[in-house]
């Protein structure tokens, strides 16, 4: 095994590891997409205090926020098939990546719902009243007046959420999928040169999260601030 660190291996491993980036991207995109839709649903349930669903939503959000995502990953992995079996759906043949996607989607929904909730409540009551006064329905008021403003308010927090989601994908490999981290691990255990793989990962994670941050700051300056 010899030397601890060989810089040439960093260049050698980089393409191997980065080629798995699409998997990471897939997780992030699905997590954010599902998170937004489900999160909006949860937020509405909680704001309208829908009976039973509201209580369930409170419990759900608290659980997701209070437990590690690794634990959630494995609970979904072992528990989801059992649950669906009850209704006669067999998913035991699913590939692991699907469980990862489900977990990250559900996880994000909880966090998104909190963001959406505080964003909506940050829109002054007068806006809703004004919307009703010109004859919009409740749903129309939400869609045409409240949500667009809430979106502007929530944008910076939303950006942070995306970056956090990206960073949390570093744990998806624990389920055994071959994303970037999984690939680095595999290379490491094959060659005993783990450090070079970790360095590649660190570079990629640093670069992407910085790019994402810059992107959101830029977008905020460009599109959001001038509209407020």
């Amino acid at each position, binding site marked *: 095994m010899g030397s*601890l660190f060989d810089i040439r291996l960093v260049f050698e491993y980089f393409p191997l590891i980065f080629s798995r980036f699409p998997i990471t991207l897939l997780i992030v995109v699905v997590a954010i997409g599902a998170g937004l839709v489900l999160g909006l649903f949860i937020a509405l349930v909680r704001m309208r205090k829908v009976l039973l669903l509201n209580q369930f939503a409170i419990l759900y959000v*608290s*659980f997701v*926020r*209070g*437990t*590690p*995502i*690794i*634990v*959630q990953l*494995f*609970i979904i992995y*072992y*528990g989801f098939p*059992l649950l669906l079996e009850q209704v006669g759906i067999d998913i035991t043949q699913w590939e692991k990546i699907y469980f990862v996607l489900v977990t990250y989607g559900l996880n994000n929904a909880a966090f998104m719902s909190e963001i959406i909730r505080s964003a909506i409540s940050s829109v002054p009551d007068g806006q809703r009243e004004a919307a009703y006064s010109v004859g919009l329905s409740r749903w129309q008021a939400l869609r045409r007046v409240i949500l667009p403003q809430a979106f502007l308010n929530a944008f910076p927090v939303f950006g942070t959420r995306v970056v956090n989601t990206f*960073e*949390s994908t*570093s*744990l998806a490999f*624990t389920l055994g999928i071959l994303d970037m*981290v999984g690939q680095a691990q595999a290379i490491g255990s094959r060659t005993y040169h*783990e*450090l070079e793989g*970790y*360095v590649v*990962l*660190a570079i990629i*994670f*640093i*670069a*992407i*999260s*910085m790019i994402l941050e810059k992107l959101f700051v830029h977008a905020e300056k460009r599109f959001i601030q001038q509209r407020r």
Partner: protein
Amino acid sequence: MVFDFHYVITSFITAVHYIPVTLALSLIPLFIGIVFGTLIAVCRKFRIRFIAPLADIIIPVVKGIPLVLHLFIMNFLILKPFDLLAQYYAWADVIRFMDKVYIAIIAISIYAVIIISETMRSALMSVSEGQYEACYSVGLTRWQALRRVVLPQVFPVAIPVLGNNLIGLIKGSSVVYLITVVDVMNGALTTAQINYRFLEAYIAAALIYWGICLLTERLFAVWENHMKKYQLGSAKNNLRQEVL
């Protein structure tokens, strides 16, 4: 295999014994993070020579590294040199098998320092420049201003965020099972290694983490209220005196 709550309890009872490990893995880094994170934030605020520009470069970069990578890299950096040494010296073996908890604490602490320095930086920004100027105008030095006026106003603002940081560390510390440290997560799994009841084990772990996090949230909320009360303390006391 059917879900059996009985096994959740078995796992739960085993895992509970490792709560101190999980707490050590999060509270020690929290403490180190508050000390050094505050120091870094203050150095950046006061533009201390060398340290401030250095921190300006390092913090945003290191912030991008996920906790699990910190852990892997630290694990490698501390253990591998001893692997090499162990081929020549027997004593290195002793260190080689040093408790990995220490490696985990070091890795999580580095992560905590970075995160908390950002928390403290934005909390520092909540104190207006006028407060510093008023201090200087009555003849306080920078450090006196910091200690007597600025930090007492910063901490009440920072506490809720520090609470979130701690919850993040508690949850994040579960990654240490990857380097075989036995914490709540790994403790719950020890029973599953025997009876293959993995779902039940993970649910047991989840319940414990959930409990710890809820408790942390409550404690920090109480602490925050206490701090706020202390700030406006006398008014409420006067009120009480008048009522009595």
